């Protein structure tokens, strides 16, 4: 992402070919899976109350919104960009939705307006990055601050609620014992995995990530795809915002504060390469569950929340280092 991270010309020698089995074994997703299994075992031993599927699924709903966004964020990062503003977009579009609803707009329309807001915000990011060609990483830090601020301006710190019963508590509705959000997240993961792995569109996202210039030369409509990705981020964030609103039965400007960290963390933990061109949705899917297990496990074991912050931070850095180590060899 920053030129500073490119090696000096003298060291740009391509890597020697590696045996296939090794390639398969060092897939970062494999690492994520192992971590997940490990985490489950540890958590189960930490507290007798952990091993209860219903409880885990119930708790997982608190992370599904971030997970959903992280899936799309994965595509963005594979394409060589990044978006740090989704949590703020969740809050702002939810605040728009709630304010309009409170102003008397039929909730259906308000929801549409909320999603439209998300699309607009995403388009704004896209405009900054694709048209004005600002580095997405710093530009979206700007929009993160801006969007969060706007939702505060819009909603103050009122807690807007009073939604109709059918809208509230989507995390309570279950198929068997599986809450709707979990199902939605899983389906979304499947859909995106297919999109990314089996369609031209997905192929082109990888191509852009590996070499944007080469992609353009090969006729890939880079600008269009990137812009589309940012809009998709906005829309997904808005949907996640609505899910959160439904789960909490209320909306405040501070919804999902700091969520960007968890989302990026999910993508990085999933083994997607921070410099783009590598990675996949499967990894993010697993990583989301890994976070669910870790957070839930620590909560139910009464481990102080503050050490959770430490764990999150260490995980993020650790996962980038690991992924980097795996990829850097073939990536110049």
């Amino acid at each position, binding site marked *: 992402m920053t030129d500073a991270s490119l090696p000096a010309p003298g060291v740009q020698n391509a890597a020697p070919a590696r045996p296939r089995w090794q390639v398969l074994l060092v897939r970062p997703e494999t690492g994520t899976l192992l971590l997940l299994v490990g985490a489950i075992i540890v958590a189960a031993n930490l507290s007798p109350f952990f091993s209860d599927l219903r409880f885990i699924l119930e708790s997982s709903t608190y992370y599904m919104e971030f997970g959903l966004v992280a899936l799309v964020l994965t595509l963005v990062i594979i394409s060589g960009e990044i978006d740090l503003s989704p949590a703020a977009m969740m809050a702002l579009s939810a605040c728009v939705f709630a304010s309009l609803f409170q102003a008397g707009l039929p909730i259906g329309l308000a929801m549409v307006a909320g999603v439209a807001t998300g699309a607009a915000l995403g388009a704004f990011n896209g405009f900054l990055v694709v048209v004005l060609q600002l580095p997405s990483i710093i530009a979206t830090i700007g929009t993160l601050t801006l969007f969060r601020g706007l939702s505060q301006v819009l909603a103050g710190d009122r807690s807007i609620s009073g939604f109709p019963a059918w809208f509230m508590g989507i995390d309570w509705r279950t198929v068997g014992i599986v809450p709707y959000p979990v199902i939605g997240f899983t389906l979304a993961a499947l859909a995106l995995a297919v999109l990314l792995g089996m369609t031209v569109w997905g192929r082109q996202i990888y191509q852009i990530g590996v070499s944007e210039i*080469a992609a353009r030369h*090969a006729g890939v409509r880079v600008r269009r795809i990137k812009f589309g990705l940012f809009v998709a981020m906005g829309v997904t964030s808005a949907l996640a915002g609505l899910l959160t609103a439904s789960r909490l039965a209320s909306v405040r400007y501070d919804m999902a504060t700091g969520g960007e960290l968890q989302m990026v963390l999910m993508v990085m933990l999933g083994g997607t390469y921070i410099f783009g061109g590598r990675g996949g949705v499967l990894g993010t899917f697993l990583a989301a569950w890994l976070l669910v297990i870790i957070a839930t496990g620590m909560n139910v074991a009464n481990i102080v929340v503050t050490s959770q912050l430490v764990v999150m931070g260490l995980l993020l850095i650790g996962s980038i280092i690991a992924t980097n180590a795996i990829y850097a060899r073939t990536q110049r």
Partner: protein
Amino acid sequence: MTALVSARGVSKSFAGVEVLRDVDLDLAAGEVHALLGENGAGKSTFARIVAGVHRPTSGTIALGGAPVDIASPVIAQSLGITLIHQEPISFPDLSVAENLVLGRSAGGPLARVPWAAMTRDARRLMDVLGVRIDVTRPMRGLSIADQQMVEIARALASDARLIIMDEPTASLTPNEVATLFTIARRLRDEGRAIVFISHRLEEVRDLCDRVTIFRDGARVETAAIGALSDAEIIRRMIGRPHQDYMHKTGVAIGGVALKITGLTRRGAFADISFDVRHGEIVGMGGLVGAGRTDVARAIFGVEPADSGTIEIDGKPATIREPSDAIALGLAFVPEDRAVAGIFRSLSVEANITAAVPGKIAPRGFIRRAVEKTLAADAVKRLRIRLASVRQPIGELSGGNQQKAILARWLMTDPSVLILDEPTRGIDIGVKAEFYDMIGDLAAQGRAILLISSELPELLALCDRVLVMSEGRLTADIPRSEATQERIMSAAVPASAGAAA
């Protein structure tokens, strides 16, 4: 003459491709030593090794008789070896004076920067060089020539014992070249060794005492400049006599395929007009930075022109994106393969099929089988050497990567093919294959625009040679009249100072 630098059995390979093979070479103090050879012959690699940019895969280098390990440019500098890059290194946001001092100023981390003295010395250096550059202005915006002068000034200031100039004149005006040579001679007379890398024989004759000729990564011969005639030198460079370096098969020239009129992009090129006919190979020569690549990129929509028209088969075309160009039957093999060509970490098949998503994924979903067969055919047809089509293309040799890129474009069955330095950095054997392919492609009635810095290549392959200089079209020479001299004279900027 006493050898200042003596290299013994120096070899270097990148990504398994050997670019320098077992080179022995002595550079003496008080001489200007020319390194000659085609692009990719290994002369620049050798220079970079001596300057510590690359480290040799094997072999030793001795400085004043004592073996040294030149592990980095920094060490090289400390040993008194300076490399003046083709593309001068600069810190655009820092002042010229600072760029001169950076890396040489002594003292600890908190040592004070003596602005006054720094500026004074810088001015003096510039006067010595007889160039007028405000040393307090930032490097950003300086012309290549001026940046080169700054580099030379650096070398002077750091009183290097060995100064390597890698194609310093490539983008200099004659006057600047003259200045450069006077300085070079004075440095030689001061007893320094100078290595001069150039394509231009007349310059070499003018300046150099001895010449070493490289071919295919090996040293062919070292001799006093007087000892060899131009023809002999060229023969040693290209390996065979000039005339039988011919390929072009008689092909019927068809109607106009690509017609460019008044193409202009501010800051790059102006008022470019030419056409390419079916079955015709039109060459485009010129110095580095003359704007050839920009024209190609403009035609292909990578960086569209500000004004001017493009017609394809007589129909005016609007090309905003490469995808538009592809739809119109254009294909473009870019100059910088590593950046603009391949997807290094993606499989060969993905690379080959990149331009034809429609073929591998009729309904949006990629058909792996189809993709594989398509790729496999191409690999067979172009004789691409690889382990598997699922192998990352980055693991292939440069020549085979380039073949894959060509294969990518053949998939689109283009009517107009733009090749930008297609054989740069490719072993001679594969080059020959490329020449054959290019000929065949023309024979199939495709129009081909061949951008190349290798004059023999242009002379050998092209029906016509266009020449660009400083963003303008300066010559359109039919095959019959084309000679290296004519092309060169059209390529070298007529008036001085235009660039500075």
